[in-house]
Structures are given as C-alpha cells and as structure tokens.
C-alpha cells in the first residue's frame, strides 16, 4: 500500500531531541572543569541538581497535568545542568531541591512546559536561591586540583567580588575584616582555563568556548547572541576603562570572570526565552550586555548576568513583535 502525504517528503535530521543532546554534550567540558576544580562536592551538586529537575518535571507532568511524561526530551537535564553550573559547590543539597523546584515547576511547567516559558528556568532557580540564601550562595570555594575529596575547603571571594570590594574599600570605612585586595585577582591565564573561585560551571572560559564552538558547528546556535553580548560588555567596559584607567573596569577581566561566558553562550541563546529572528536576537544580546555592565558597575551585586538575561527574557515577546524579518518584495526603493 503506497503512502500519501503532503510535501516536503524529506526532513532535516536535527530534531528537538538531537538539539537537546548537543547542548548536553556542549556543557560536558565545563562540567568536567568544575568537578576537577571543586572535587566531590561539585559532582554531588551537579548530580543532585539534574536528578531533582528531572524528578520535579516528572511529578508535575504525571500527577499535576496528567499528561504523558516529557522527561525524555532532555530539557530537564539541561535545566538541571545549567542550574548546577550557576551554584557554588558548597551549597547544601536541600537548597538545590528548592532551586530546582523553582526552576522546573515555577519557571517552566507553570507556563505550560517546554517552549512556552517566558524566563530561562535555570536562571529563575538561581536568582531565587541567590535572593533567598545570599550567604550560602556566595560561599565561593577556592579551586584545588589535588583535593578531590574536599579534605580542606577554603573559601574566598570571586574576581568580581574583589573588584566590587575595591570600590567599597576606597571609601572611608572598610566593612569587613581581612578584605582581599587587588593582588588576589587571578591572572588572565588562570581565569581563562578556570583555576579560580566561582560557580561550578562558570569558571573555565576555555571549556565553555569549546562547548560554544561545538554548538556552532552543529548549528544549534548562531553566532549573533554570544558575539553581540560579549562584544557589548567588552566595548562598554573598555570605554569606562579608557576614561578612568581604573582597574575595576578592566575589560578582559570582565569578559573572563563571573558567569558572562556561560550566560552568553548557553543562557542567552536558549531558544524559548529569546527572540526568534536574527534582528531580534541582536537587540536582545545588546540589551543583555548593557544591563550586565550597568549592574556590575553600579548595582549592589557584583554579578549581573543572570539578572540581565532574565530582564531581557521579559522583553523578548515585545522584541519579536516589533523586529521581524523583511518580507521578500517589500523593499523600499
């Protein structure tokens, strides 16, 4: 019996599952660096985060929405991975459970599941934890390559924390004792390969860029968002740096430190929460860049990537409405 169907009769190999798998693969190098740096606790954090995200998704879909399970589409795994990447290694397990609940149930399933959420679920989870438990969320472990079982945990401030602190210490009263000074800022090479304190996934620029290149080759993402995001942050901080010659505006430090590269390659390129057209994506990325710089330089928090992306997520439906592709044949003469 011959089959009848409408055109087209062939399809691209890349389906949703393949895309999600590629993203997981692209995240692996950064995960490895995180585990290498922070040892067993990082591994536990990553596994807990993934497991709890998948669990929450399964529970909501099966028992709340009463639909067939959607955990096979890898999206919960990605959310879990990204959430873990945005957490410090020392975070207690119960906080991860709360964070993943916020990410999956509130950030994603409440909007209707994959493809319908407005905000990046992993960032929703992170920001919730960040605001609720600021102490635990800013306990940055120092990397130690020879101590996998975490026999000797030392904590310290992140690069951005130090930069922020310079600002504070320059004023008359110093707030805390034993503040780190500029000498504790790691050099560029250590920041690039990831031998520095911070969240599990954000430390190594090298590993993240490798993942990004993999995604570009697989055509999962386009170059626009990472380029314009990183570019705008670099541009604005160099302008500030040139104008003031102040080390806290050092553009390369800003590029390599904090969650900027993780955000630019993996969070700001999330399909669902970003605009659909190239033009819209560029505007989105520029907005993210400007907001990140503003929060980093003038905000209360040392890091602004997650807030910047979440704020721009809220704008992406609006951007989609006003910036779309030019229809063929409507060129103005």
């Amino acid at each position: 019996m011959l089959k009848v169907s409408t055109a087209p009769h062939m399809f691209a190999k890349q389906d949703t599952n393949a895309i999600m798998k590629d993203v997981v693969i692209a995240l692996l190098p950064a995960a490895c660096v995180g585990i290498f740096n922070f040892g067993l606790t990082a591994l536990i954090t990553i596994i807990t985060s993934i497991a709890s995200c998948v669990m929450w998704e399964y529970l909501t879909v099966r028992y709340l929405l009463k639909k067939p399970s959607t955990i096979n589409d890898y999206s919960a795994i990605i959310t879990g991975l990204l959430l873990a990447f945005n957490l410090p290694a020392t975070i207690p397990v119960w906080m991860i459970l709360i964070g993943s609940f916020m990410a999956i149930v509130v950030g994603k399933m409440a909007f209707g599941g994959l493809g319908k959420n407005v905000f990046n679920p992993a960032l929703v989870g992170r920001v919730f934890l960040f605001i609720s438990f600021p102490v635990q969320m800013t306990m940055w472990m120092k990397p130690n390559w020879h101590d996998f079982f975490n026999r000797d945990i030392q904590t310290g401030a992140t690069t951005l924390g130090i930069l922020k602190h310079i600002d504070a210490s320059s004023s008359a009263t110093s707030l805390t004792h034993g503040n780190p000074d500029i000498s504790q800022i790691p050099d560029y090479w250590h920041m690039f390969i990831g031998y520095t304190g911070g969240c599990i996934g954000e430390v190594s620029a090298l590993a993240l860029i490798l993942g990004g290149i993999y995604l570009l080759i697989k055509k999962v993402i386009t170059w626009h968002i990472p380029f314009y995001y990183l570019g705008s942050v670099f541009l604005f901080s160099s302008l500030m740096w040139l104008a003031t010659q102040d080390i806290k505006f050092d553009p390369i430090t800003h590029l390599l430190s904090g969650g900027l590269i993780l955000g630019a390659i993996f969070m700001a390129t999330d399909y669902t929460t970003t605009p659909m057209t190239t033009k819209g994506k560029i505007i989105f990325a520029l907005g993210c860049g400007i907001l990140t710089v503003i929060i980093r330089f003038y905000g209360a928090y040392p890091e602004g990537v997650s807030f910047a992306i979440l704020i721009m997520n809220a704008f992406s439906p609006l951007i989609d409405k006003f910036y779309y592709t030019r229809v063929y044949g409507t060129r103005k003469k």
Partner: protein
Amino acid sequence: MTKTFSLGGIFPKKYKITSEIPSKDAGLPEYVYIPVKQHIGTPAKILVNKGDKVKVGTLLADADGVISADVHSSVSGEVIRIDETEAASGYFENMITIKVQGDEAEDYIDLSQTLCKEIPETPQEIIDKIRKAGVVGMGGAGYPTPIKDTIPQDKKIDILIINGIECEPWLTSDDRLMVEKAEEIVIGAKILNKLFGIQNAIIAIDENKLKAIDIISNITKRYVGVNVRVCKTKYPQGGEKQLISAITGREVPSGKLPMDIGCLVQNVGTVFAVYEAVMKNKPLYERYVTVSGDMCKTPQTFKVRIGTPISFLIDQCGGYDEKTAQIILGGPMMGNSIIHTQAPITKTSSGVLLLSNELSKRPTPTDCIRCGKCVDSCPMGLRPYLIGIYTRNNLLEELKSIHAQDCIECGCCAYICPARIPLLDFCKLAKIELKNKQGK
C-alpha cells in the same frame, strides 16, 4: 563569484546520483495516455476521434483561448479511447489513449541531429512556431509559453534569465539536458533574445553542476548576448523570485509578476523546447525525466515521450517492492505523492522518485520550542511559526497582515523544523482560506 538570494534557504542533502549517467531513450510503451490539460488555463479542444490513426507530432487538441496550449501526439498509432482516465493524483482527467503502432513521424518535423543556427527574421514567426508546438513552462507550473512571451506594450523586459538550477534533491533532468543539448539551449536563448529584443540573456546554473557550467560557458563565448552565471547550491535557488533576486538584486513585489520589474525567467527545458519548435518544427512531445530515489534499483535519466505511463519508467529501473513507501512525482521538497502508477508523464513532470519509509515518513509533531529556524530558513522572509498559530486559530486578517499569501510553498520551514510541526501544511491552508475569503 557565486550568486545567491539574501533571505533564508536551506541545504538539504543533494543525492544527485544520476548526474553522471547519460540519459537514455525510454523507448515506446504499449499505450500512451495524453491529457488534454497539461498546463495552467483552459483544457485544449480535442480534434481527433476514436479510431483515428495518428503520427508522432499530429495535433490532437487545439489551444482553447489565450491561456491554453496545443497538445500533440507523442507516438504513432491508433486513438482507442477518449475519456476520463486516472491521473497521478488519482483524480480523473480527460485523456486521449493511443495504442502504439510503429514509430512514424509527421513530415514537417526535422528529426535530424544537425544544429540549426539560422534564427527566423520576425518575432511573429517565432511566436507562431512556439505556439504551434504547444510549448509550456517545463519547470513545474506549466504556464503556456506563448502568453509568457506576449508581453504588454508598457512592460519593458531587459533581462532574460534561463533557469538551469535544479535545487531539488535527486532530480538531474535539467542537468543532463544542459550537458547533452548545451548548444541548442544557447541558440534557444538567442531566439528568445530576438523575440523580446533583449541584449542580455543569463543562463543560471548552480555550482555543483561542474560539467554543465564548463560546457555551456565554453559555448557562450561564441554567442553574443548569452552569459553564464554560477549560483550557490542552496534550496530554493531555482525558485523564480529567488533566482531574480540572486541574479539582478531586484525583488518581485507581492502580487506582481517578474515582467513588472523587467525580468523574464524560463526553464532550460522550455528554452530547449523553443529551439526545437522554432528550428526543427518539432512540437513538445518528449522531455527529460529523472527516475531516482533511495529505493530505486538503477536510477536513470530518461528521454521520455509525453504520455508514457510512470510504471513503464519504474519498470525499466528495476521496479519497486513493498519497501517503497512513497512514489513522488517531482522533487522531494515540492512534489506530490503518486497514487496511480499507470498515470502518464506530462509536459511538467521532471522526476519520479521512489522513497523508503525511513526517509519520507512524516515525524510526529511536538511542541514548538521557538528556535526560530523556520524564520531563518524562509526564502520569502515570512514567519512560518506565526502563520501556523494564526491558521490554527483561523485569524484571516492577521494572516494577511503577515503576508501569508506570499508563501511560495518551498517547504523549507517544514524541512528544518526540529519540532516537526507541519508548517508548510499550515501555510497552504492559510493560502486556501485567504483565497476563499477573497472569492466571496
């Protein structure tokens, strides 16, 4: 430098397995079925009766009105039936069935292979000859060529584009035609140049047809006013609007024709038919057809008489077994499923594809993940995901405002969609609905 269009486009796997294989004469089947309507417009008026003896090239049906084309016999033999007969879609169409007896041609046709270079003097003579030969656009739409050629006085055509681009996977009929009949095509282009008073004809070929580019660009050196442009291998480069934008940078406004911006696009097959009609007095009764696909045992490009049953060609390529899930008439991106394999090849059929279930099975749609790939791939700059949403909710005004009626149905969006949403189906539905609304 290779040229291409600016908006969208996709890169499907090429599968051009037959491009190196020389074409073969398919031979004569036992019966041919010649539809009286192989073009857009009114069906031709039947001139023959049951029992009549016909020869190759005998006029079977006469063009009825301006938008119509003559239909000629492709074989010699006896008319045994004039009735509704099943076409490839399974619908019944008026066809003339001829029982093949011998292979005798009408006297006025010049069957020799010698090249004629003497172009007739007056445009009227050319138009008459093209009209008499029943030439239609062989790219797929089947617009009768004579009316494509009679341009209103106020429209000035300054560029003739000859479409040698075969962007659909598998199909190689135009490729083989250009390799084997290169000089004839160039002379055909000269004829059309003369007809419209154009100085500039451009033969556009996509860059993976190295042999055709090589042969034709060598020949064009000897002919003034015919040039070759190489285009990027990208789907849908062969679309009329995309080709114009790639070659000239102009864009056809919505609802207008290429002639409104001074362009005219003709398929290479049509140009070859024009050459044969004008120089050899040969009506359009045969064409190149590719039989291919991943389930085809011996893929081959054939020179086929119009009206030959599709199954006759498939049998010559080793037939098909139960593994063949679909047989497609045309390319895999825009072609339609064949229901009835006894149906004939018409003037507009460019290929027959036997596809396996693995390749052609329609995947199950899942939720849209808003990846934007459909928007990036649309060669018309439309937003297919939005057309899908609006069509599902029947929002006709909104559909019109996002230019849903401009969709060229190339299928890029449905091909690329990772969520496997049948976006092209929604676009087609939107067009049906908008047309219905206009009709009211």
